[in-house]
């Protein structure tokens, strides 16, 4: 049974977790009340937009319920986090999420920071092969899954791949 909006009898299509203040506070609202909630003051403490606020605001403005459901199910091929999980926790799963969910994150980030492009310090070292680093994250997760499923031979193969990648990364 779908969750009801906390303010009325309609189905709750927006699930907002406020992270400001001590404990995360969960809100389940229909579209109308979500819009209302987000247009009141700027979050519970006033001031700069909170992540949850910005996130929900963007979704209220940009997404129909169906699109939202589809987006929520999308997951990162590297760490496995779904957009729904990110939306609920406010935390991303790995560096690759910034590439994988870039289209969704860009307006959100612009909303929070007022800018979408980094200025300032950069690493002195070359970043190396980013795809290789990302591949390492994916392989480690795959190895863990193989172990959990007791597929030890597969796990062993993956471990060899990881070692190969790690050693090529060190020499390069």
């Amino acid at each position, binding site marked *: 049974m779908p969750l009801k909006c906390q303010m009325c009898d309609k189905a709750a299509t927006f699930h907002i977790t406020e992270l400001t203040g001590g404990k995360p506070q969960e809100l389940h609202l229909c579209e109308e009340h979500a819009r209302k909630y987000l247009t009141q003051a700027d979050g519970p403490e006033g001031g700069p937009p909170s*992540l949850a606020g910005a996130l929900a605001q963007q979704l209220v403005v940009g997404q129909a319920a169906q699109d939202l459901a589809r987006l929520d199910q999308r997951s990162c091929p590297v760490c496995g986090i779904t957009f729904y999980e990110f939306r609920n926790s406010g935390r991303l799963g790995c560096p690759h999420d*910034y590439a994988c969910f870039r289209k969704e994150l860009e307006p959100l980030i612009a909303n929070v920071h007022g800018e979408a*492009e980094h200025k300032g*310090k*950069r690493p002195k070292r070359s970043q190396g092969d980013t795809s290789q*680093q990302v591949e390492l994250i994916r392989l480690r*997760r795959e190895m863990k899954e193989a172990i959990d499923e007791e597929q030890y031979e597969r796990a062993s193969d993956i471990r060899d791949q990881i070692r190969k990648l790690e050693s090529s990364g060190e020499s390069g």
Partner: protein
Amino acid sequence: MMLAGAAPQRRDFFPGKVGTKRMGRGEPLKLDELARTSGEWLRGSGPESDIVMSSRVRLARNLANFPFICRANDTDRAEIERTLRECVARINETAKLQYVDVNKLEGLDRQFLVERHLISREHAESVGARGVAIDQGEQISLMINEEDHLRIQVLRSGLDLQRAWEEMDRIDDLVEDHVTYAFSDPFGYLTACPTNVGTGLRVSVMLHLPALVLTQQIEKVFRSLQKINLAVRGLYGEGSQAMGDFYQISNQITLGHTEPELLEQVGKVVPVILDYERKARNVLVRENHDNLHDRVSRAYGILQTAQTISSEETMHLLSSVRMGINLGLINDVDIPVVNQLFVHTQPAHLQKIRGVPLDTANRNIERARYLRRHLAKGKDGADQN
């Protein structure tokens, strides 16, 4: 079998018993001894330190080849901790850091580090492989496996943001010599929470604003700060209540501005708030001198004579005494003593100093005894237990 290779638990850095007491290069970091001292940043020596307790900068950094903490399994977390612990050991020569394995600490010791501002509450309450490297003066701390893989913090006494940043920049470069940070265009340094992305830099100042609280102008100040995208928090950061009239003011935005711009954003608003606070103090002295003097003297008197006292009341009264000293209404105790009392009368500190666990009622008695000993009038009193 073969899978044991997944997470080699090497402990070859920091020889000796790794855990609560012994770390560093064979040198013990004794939390019990630490409890009797205080960090450099509490000395009250920096610029504007009558109102600015401390300046703090922190950087959020992540390793490029690991998932962020919320998707990291135990093996990943152990590997991240090992990688960064070894990195800390390598930069040890220049930065003189000692490593504490937070995962092996008991709850009281973790709380103790929170009270000293060396780890965050989130880091204390989290689970699994994690640690913190601390320098001798307690001005630098590197938290491993907090919300991000690495959180570097530099604290300085008074208003000293520029030097805090220079120190931070140097440590960040040293760390980066050994690891590859997650960084990409256009977002910059990548962080678990998009609110920290870009520079990963949080610049904050801890201000003591008793007169603005007393004259009920503090809300007005907060509202204007929030309008210019600055956040206001309590003594122990996010979600913590303002205790002892201490407020942390920090930048909310981390992306799209250079580090010096972010320093400037916080730095330029501080003189304005200092001016408000000093004006409010002057008004109190001019128009309400007797009441103010009475308030400050009573606060001092209670702290000198109470037999049992809560942490909350202590903070509240110490705040009045601190302002009283700054206004010349109290002359026989120094600011660094009071600064230290704010920290040493916290629950975990009292228990570490006393050396035994104490329940709330006994903590209140111990706190009162500690205050009497440190604020006693004249030499005779100072020697009392």
